[in-house]
């Protein structure tokens, strides 16, 4: 809340935000995608640093981090179209999370761009609902350089 309020009042744009617990029970971690078109990332990072309950702010460079997102999609699927949709989902390693008489809920985990592609492919079949978690990321072990992008203690 302190972070989103600061972004709102300074006119910084958030493209996605996800928050969850970490290896330390008293620390939570926020991963954000921010738009650096109007405001340089450096200024955004400095303003975040000023928040007392932000412990660390670090940038995850593309390529130096593992990035993932989870999406759930409810797609119209008459019995006649099920086979085609399921074949499609297998190409993306999507799972069938729920199957009904006229729709399927797919669960897909992957790089956000893969989710975009899958969404595009199923959309013509009738995409009834879509939920995405926003991306999370972690620095690659090999480089050892990338740090968590955002850390935030919730109070």
């Amino acid at each position, binding site marked *: 809340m302190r972070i989103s309020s600061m972004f709102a009042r300074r006119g910084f744009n958030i493209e996605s935000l996800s928050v969850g617990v970490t290896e330390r029970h008293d620390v939570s971690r926020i991963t954000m995608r921010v738009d650096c078109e109007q405001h340089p990332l450096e200024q955004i990072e400095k303003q975040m640093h*000023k*928040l007392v309950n932000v412990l660390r702010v670090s940038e995850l460079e593309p390529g130096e981090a593992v990035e993932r997102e989870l999406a759930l999609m409810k797609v119209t699927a008459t019995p006649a179209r099920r086979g085609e949709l399921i074949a499609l989902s297998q190409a993306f390693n999507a799972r069938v999370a729920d199957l009904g008489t006229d729709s399927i809920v797919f669960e897909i985990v992957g790089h956000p761009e893969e989710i975009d592609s899958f969404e595009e492919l199923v959309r013509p079949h009738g995409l009834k609902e879509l939920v995405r978690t926003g991306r999370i990321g972690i620095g690659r072990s090999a480089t050892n350089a990338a740090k968590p992008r955002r850390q935030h203690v919730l109070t």
Partner: protein
Amino acid sequence: MTRRMNGADAILRSLEAEGVDTVFGIPGGAVLPTYDAFARGTTVRHVLARHEQGAGHMAEGYARASGRTGVAVATSGPGATNLVTPIADAWMDSTPLVCITGQVRSHLIGTDAFQECDITGITIPVVKHSWLVQDVDQIPHVLKSAFHVARTGRCGPVLVDIPRDIQEAELDFEYPDSVDLPGWKPPQKGHPRQIARAAQALAAAERPVLYVGGGTLNADACDELRMLAELGRFPVVTTLMGKSAFPETHELHFGWPGMHGPKWSNWAMNKCDLLVAVGARFDDRVTGKLAAFAPGATVIHLDVDSAEISKLRQADIPVVGPLKQVLSDLRDELRALHGTGHIPRTEPWLRQLAAWREEFPLRYRSGGDTLKPQLVVETLQELTADRDDVVWTTGVGQHQMWAMQYLLCDQPRSFITSGGLGTMGYGVPAAIGAKAARPDATVVCVDGDGCFQMTGQELATSVLEGLPIVVVIVNNGYLGMVRQWQDMFFDERQSQIHLTKNVPDYAKLAEAYGGVGLTVDNEDDLEGVLQEALTCGRTAVVDARVDAAEQCFPMIPAGAAALDLVEFEDGVDEQEKVAAA
């Protein structure tokens, strides 16, 4: 050594442990246990305000006059929301402030209970940090943290919200000696290499200007600033917030930059080759059109808040650190450079600035039948010129800008005003707070009639708490600055600005509050009336009924460049008075 007590007592023992001598507040339902603790005994003085906004501004005035942290106390709901304006004011002007608010009982939070309000939520955008205390055992640690955060790094307000049941619950009290906040690590020292680079740039500059903001006062770095300026023979301009950080009768002081700054100050900024921002933040009221601000200058930016660096103007040489150390080290570096045979080369530039000051003095039209507002402020300056125990506060508007232009402040922390938020009504309560911090000083609020009517009821606090202040109302009967903008930028269509000079009768009002009330409407009586107010030793209000047509010049219209400055123009030469500041 721990002691068993309830949360309310723990709050007061914590304030005592912090060395707090005075707090400002108003009781109410959700802080009753804490006020009961006041009644049961404490070394902390409680000043009873008449409105929580007044209490908040008093705490700000106390902080700004003393350099200590101001403390305001209020109840939940409306008490807390009335503090929002002072909190926002302290946020904009980096004033260290700890606000303690009562909250409804824990089990009622979130139920829309009587006088419930999510004050930590409301204030998030305008506090450095806030705490909703959920466990009585947290009180000592939270208050220690609150004072630490308010006062360290860039100063500012914090809020501690304490539910009533937490104030009543018991704990084993022990006040911590220190706090460790992993997310709050303000810079401890400016980088030596950056300081060396800054010193080299200063030594090489031919037309440097030190652009000094309020951060210098907060850092208690005025001596270091003066020694640096004197060593390098650097001219100094002080912002509205930086006013009094550098002696204004000093030969190196060259006024105040910005919208109503004198031409010579703005030209100094515009023509300089090296601009050194010292605890200043390139506010739009200083820079005007940013792209045209100090166009040829290399910028050194000294600040304790790294987020201010290159926020608006790209800094060529940033130094992030506490200004006291940074300015002191900068002087040492510069002296070392001088030791190698360098002599300051700023004398021609200083002569140029002095020539501009001669050529473009502050002017207004004098004579005629009416009392000029500028003359009221000038006379206050003359009457106090040889004193070093006067603290000024102001409201916001034309009178504030005249106070900036005509009052010369040599002592640090002797000019207290609302710069960033521009809070009308700041002056009277801030003066009361300043008086509480400095009982031996003569505290004078230069106010406007519009401002006075926003917080004037605090005269009761001044009289009854034994905190006498002098209020000089520059009474033009209008919301004068609004009128000036309507006249200049809205084709003189005056809209909802006329307050009238005689409702209320301010002198009678002052007397009704138990103070001294004086009215003056002509030049002949002015000096005598002001002198009487300054020397009576009681709460005094001077209703100075001035010419409503006077506008504040010079003026750089909002968003314009320094060279587009609009000057005072006077068609009647023989009546023209030249008043060099």
